[in-house]
């Protein structure tokens, strides 16, 4: 709509006609208070806090429902308005318990802030307050009714936002109350969005309540370790005797790729870090064949000497390396560099859940054909083929729903099973089981297998389309689907994987045949600066274990993976292999190791991860645990113990020390932080330590095609794009679709890691007991 000019508090503002006054003001830095108004959710006009005076209108108007028009004049702060807001707060406080000293929301409560701002300090209320016992609706959600101010945000975020509709309002007048769908419990996706959006302490989190005060925590923004959507998550951490613990996860500054959103795993599934089964000491198998605690020095020396011995006596081909889909890009890069240049082997692989190699191959030579997660939130049309994002990619599902709801995007779904997102779909194409192979031909016009011309016509009528497809596609099928795009206008793709850095594992070359950036190891001159890079492809994950079974594998290094459980490896087969495992827990794989090195989780280290859409985000160290080390540091120490000059692995110091070591940083609060971001972004931050992952990030950017990152945004905490349309067409090799095994984690599962989260187990149990929720 055309821009209009209007006046607010004497200032001339301009906004498109029809913009809500409250939004127009907020954009111009004029804060209008509100409890019930929430951007993106339906309008309520219930709290009456946003009242403003409009010229020539007799009554105060609510800024959340007033749309701006040419020439209007508003006053947003005056004695009259302040009094109206003060009175509203006084009315709210009448029956509101003043248990702020013990309330979870104390210190970050919108009602407290408003009370303070409008000076409603004197209580006029002389009646008895009505107390109600607090209710537990699920392991995650508690409800303290007297604290509720009935802003209806929770109801709307659950219904409009999540499309779950598990909360309602019951009774009338002063007896009105928020109520859960199960009568006394919630049957829902347990996302906890209602808790986060609650402006007061009425809805509190089972994992956080009564644990701490908000100001006793440090708040660190990092990336969720669970699924491949890569939500930004703010961890509230607090010091403990053996480090610092995570007491809360939320998305308090809403600045991330996920905006308002966080799912159950992101919000509650951080507690694995505090699991008592957590390894905090290296373990070494003793002469009796039992694992016993050892010092880091001893464990590293033993592991290093074994690796060196096998490499020197039997060659790199007798060593296998298995990487992780949850470790950082820097760790993955370092691991493959360590394998290839120190262990001199291409026997490196990871548990592949998605055929990213095929995706890279399919996109070879085509730039700007991938869609970021943000693109999906704004694209005018999306074709979703396969998968069930509600369960496996909660943020993707949120973005799709939000895009349909707020932007009227058209969502087309082709799936062999009914999925919940079909409620938002413009059209649905039901496929037969395993019927996905026919999709490219169908879209190309063939009616041979799939007969539904209407759906196709609607999809083909879209000028601009994002195709999101799941793990039903592998190998040639990926290429066929992607090949359909370039022939017709603006089609972009997103390929769905499983874990927080599944994409990064593939991008960073945790593959026996491909170097970082999907450059074949056989490509002439590839990664020339890698000294001693073996020129032939290595063994795949099953081949590594097969070799071990045949006694051909002298040593195996497993980082953050549990292939024994996944592949069903018989521990007896490993008797002739020296196994080194870096992990958080004594997994089935770690249990058969000779040396177990306790690793830090993603929440306890720094680096970057790449989500399945190719968005790279900064991981920041939040928690700390005595006894564990980040995989990055373990690898550097292992290399050091093997006698390697670690500078050849991690280019620290080398040309990096160009900054002023802090002298020019201003004294003004916050300036130092901004300065640090600027230094890091411009490669001026000194890399003084071999354990600084950013030193490796510099090398990744230099060597890995597609990883030319917008550093100022990356270090500022934003998601930045990679562009995988980089693989040299001449260098393409076949991929191995058979090795792809999707994890298909759902709302409360997260691979091996999820098994160690009591919160997720509790939620799964609750939903198993009460889960009548009809997904469709």
């Amino acid at each position, binding site marked *: 709509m055309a821009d209009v000019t209007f006046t607010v508090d004497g200032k001339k503002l301009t906004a498109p006609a029809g913009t809500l006054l409250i939004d127009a003001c907020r954009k111009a830095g004029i804060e209008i208070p509100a409890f019930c108004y929430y951007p993106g959710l339906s309008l309520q006009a219930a709290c*009456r806090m946003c009242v403003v005076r409009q010229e020539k209108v007799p009554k105060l108007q609510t800024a959340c*429902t007033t749309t701006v028009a040419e020439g209007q004049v508003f006053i947003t702060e005056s004695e009259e308005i302040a009094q109206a807001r003060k009175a509203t707060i006084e009315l*709210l406080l009448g*029956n509101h318990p003043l248990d702020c000293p013990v309330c979870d929301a104390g210190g970050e409560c919108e009602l407290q802030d408003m009370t303070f701002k409008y000076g409603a300090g004197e209580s006029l209320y002389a*009646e*008895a307050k009505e107390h109600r016992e607090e209710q537990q609706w699920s392991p995650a959600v508690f409800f303290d009714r007297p604290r509720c101010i009935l802003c209806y945000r929770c109801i709307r975020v659950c219904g409009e936002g999540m499309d779950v*509709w*598990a909360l309602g309002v019951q009774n*009338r007048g*002063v007896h009105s109350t928020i109520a859960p769908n199960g009568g006394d419990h919630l049957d829902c996706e347990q996302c906890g969005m209602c808790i986060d959006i609650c402006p007061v302490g009425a809805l509190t989190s089972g994992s956080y309540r009564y644990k701490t005060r908000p100001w006793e925590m440090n708040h660190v923004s990092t990336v969720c370790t669970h699924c491949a959507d890569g939500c930004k998550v703010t961890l509230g951490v607090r010091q403990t005797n053996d480090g610092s613990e995570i007491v809360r996860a939320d998305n308090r500054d809403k600045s991330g790729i996920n905006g308002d959103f966080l799912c159950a795993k992101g919000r509650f599934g951080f507690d694995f870090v505090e699991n008592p089964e957590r390894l905090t000491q290296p373990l070494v198998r003793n002469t009796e064949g039992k694992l016993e605690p050892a010092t880091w020095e001893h464990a590293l020396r033993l592991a290093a000497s074994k690796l060196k011995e096998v490499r020197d006596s039997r060659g790199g081909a007798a060593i296998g390396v298995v990487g992780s889909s949850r470790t950082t890009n820097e760790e993955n890069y370092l691991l493959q560099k360590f394998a290839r240049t120190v262990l001199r082997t291409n026997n490196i692989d990871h548990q592949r859940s998605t055929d990213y190699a095929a995706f890279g191959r399919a996109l070879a030579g085509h730039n700007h054909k991938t869609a970021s997660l943000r693109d999906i939130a704004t694209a005018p049309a999306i074709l979703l083929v396969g998968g069930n994002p509600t369960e496996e990619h909660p943020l993707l599902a949120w973005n799709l729903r939000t895009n349909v709801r707020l932007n009227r995007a058209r969502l087309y779904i082709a799936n062999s099973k009914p999925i919940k997102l079909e409620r938002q779909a413009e059209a649905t194409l039901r496929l037969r089981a395993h019927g996905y192979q026919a999709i490219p031909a169908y879209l190309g016009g063939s009616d041979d297998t799939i007969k539904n011309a209407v759906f196709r016509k609607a999809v083909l009528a879209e000028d601009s389309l994002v195709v999101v497809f799941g793990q039903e596609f592998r190998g040639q099928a990926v290429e066929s689907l992607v090949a359909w795009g370039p022939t017709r206008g603006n089609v972009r793709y997103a390929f769905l994987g499983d874990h927080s850095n599944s994409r990064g594992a593939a991008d960073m070359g945790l593959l026996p045949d491909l170097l970082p950036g999907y450059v074949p190891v056989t490509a002439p001159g590839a990664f020339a600066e890698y000294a001693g890079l073996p020129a032939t492809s290595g063994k795949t994950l099953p081949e590594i274990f097969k070799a071990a079974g045949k006694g051909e594998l002298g040593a195996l290094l497993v980082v953050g993976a549990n292939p024994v459980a996944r592949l069903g490896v018989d521990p007896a087969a490993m008797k002739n292999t020296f196994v080194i495992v870096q992990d958080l827990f004594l997994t089935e794989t770690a249990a058969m190791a000779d040396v177990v090195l306790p690793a830090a989780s993603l929440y306890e280290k720094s680096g970057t991860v790449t989500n399945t859409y190719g968005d790279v985000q900064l991981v920041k160290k939040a928690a700390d645990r005595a006894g564990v080390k980040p995989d990055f540091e373990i690898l550097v120490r292992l290399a050091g113990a093997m006698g390697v000059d670690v500078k050849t692995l991690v280019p620290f110091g080398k040309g990096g020390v160009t900054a002023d070591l802090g002298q020019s940083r201003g004294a003004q609060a916050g300036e130092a932080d901004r300065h640090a971001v600027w230094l890091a972004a411009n490669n001026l931050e000194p890399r003084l330590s071999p354990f600084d992952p950013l030193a490796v990030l510099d090398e990744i950017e230099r060597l890995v095609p597609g990883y030319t990152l917008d550093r100022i945004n990356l270090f500022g905490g934003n998601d930045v794009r990679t562009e995988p349309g980089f693989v040299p067409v001449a260098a393409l090799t076949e991929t191995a679709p058979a090795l792809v095994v999707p994890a298909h984690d759902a709302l409360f599962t997260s691979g091996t890691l999820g098994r160690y989260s009591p919160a997720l187990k509790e939620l799964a149990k609750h939903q198993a007991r009460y889960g009548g929720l009809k997904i469709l």
Partner: protein
Amino acid sequence: MSIFSPQLAARFDALVQKYPVRRSALVPMLLYAQDEIGYLSDAVIAEVAERIGITELEVRNVATYYSMLRFKPVGKYNVQVCTNISCMLRGAHEIYERFQEELDIGHKGVTPDGLFSLEEVECIGACSWAPAIQVNYDFHDGLTPEHVPGILARYRQLEGKAAPPQLVFHPDEVKIVSRRFGLGAAKIDRYLELGGYAATKKCLELGPDWIINEMKAGNLRGRGGAGFSAGLKWSFVPKKSAKPKYVLVNGDESEPGTCKDHLIFLHDPHAVIEGTIIAGLAIGAKVGFIYLRGEYRYLLEIMEEAVADAYAKGFLGKNIFGSETEFHIVTHTGAGAYEVGEESALMESLEGKRGIPRIKPPYPAVVGLYGGPTIINNAETIATVPHVIEMGGAAYAAVGSPRNGGTRLFSISGHVERPGVYELPMGYNLKKMIYEVAGGIRGGRTLKAVVPGGSSTPVLLPEEIDIGMDFDQVGKAGSMLGSAGVVVIDDQTCMVEFALRTISFYQHESCGWCIPCREGTDWLKKSLTRFHAGFGTAKDIDNIQYLAENMMGRTFCPFGDAAAMPTLAFVKKFRKEFEEHLNGKPCPFTKQVDLVVV
């Protein structure tokens, strides 16, 4: 398998088909289910949810909103004693106490044999015949405590039907809307004999522009209370609309002190039908809804019969009166909610939702029921329409005062000798109305105060009542004509108690959507309860005034003003009486009540 009887199940099957969306059947369905099963059990809620196609949570959200719907069994005969202002003034508390004694149960109690239950309820729309009660859906009015044993005995013998309320007459009356009252016009043939449906035929001939012009000329201002010109409102409806247009008749008569629509539905249902058709013709709607409050079940049955008769005669249906015009009427029951009288809340309720008002704009004339342009008028306004058409707008307007066309049905209640519903010209003198038409103050007592237009309107002092009863003159006197429910209060009445009873009603009826109304009404009720019980402090009086002042104009809908306005008037005009309650002094008018914090 349905838990309902085959008849009820069949009725539900038909009910969901009556509306443009199935969900509209929700509230009536819940009430009818309750009539059969006794209460809304989990099984009822589950089946209703299934039948409508919504979640049980949604059914509960809606069901818990309406005060007639209940979730526990009650007695076979549920005695509902109205204690709202008009009934209170004429001894409702004594009636209620007598029932408590006779049945040996309290509020919401059930007798051990399960035969009776007792409930204190809000206004049931029988103010001029107060005190009144309902036993299930039967009205019993004009009661004294001595009637109580007889009523109970008759129900024990299963013959409890009540007689309809008494009509009153006065020579000053100008009978237009009430012209056919008491003449048997509920029967269609009798209605036709009395000249019925001529106006509709005339409108069919002369068309929408003519209708709207006549309506504008008639100066017929909304009888629900807002006083907005009906003709003007109709003219706001866009001629062309992609969505169907609707007429919605507001028969949710709930303003304490008002019982006029009660008589219209009882005596002249076809006038409502005619008015609805004419409104439909004026705006080009094909469907009209007539929404009656849930308590008016016997009136709904009368309306339903009248609608069926009109269909049978071809006055409703595909080709009304043999014309090419199609028009349908759907009657609809509420289930106990004053707030639903607000037009946008009424639409929500008809759409099967909680009676929460909508954000305006858009106004109903543009976006109303089911998103289509809708005109919503009070039942009296609609019943007046055929008369405006018959008389001609100018002639109708001439009956009233300037800018206030025609007559009004004044529901006079409280401490007068001859309470009743009188039809008097707009602008009729209030003092004359009380002292001559209604026969003066009962028992030769002295007048203390008058609530001129239903409980929401600020109280007037005896020296303020020499005014003409039309929208403008009452407005000038600092109050409102409102729904023309005139409640007369004598000198033996405690104004603190009267204020408390008034605000208790608003506390009970607040929908709870917005903060100032939800919290303000509750706080005021609590303060006044304590105050009346003799535990008030001087500061309370200022606080009450402060709260009321800060509700005024700040709420989502006019309900907040409706609660705050009278409160402010009570405190300002009777401050001395409030002060007499201070310092532990007993209420000088009523026996001491225990402090009850509700």
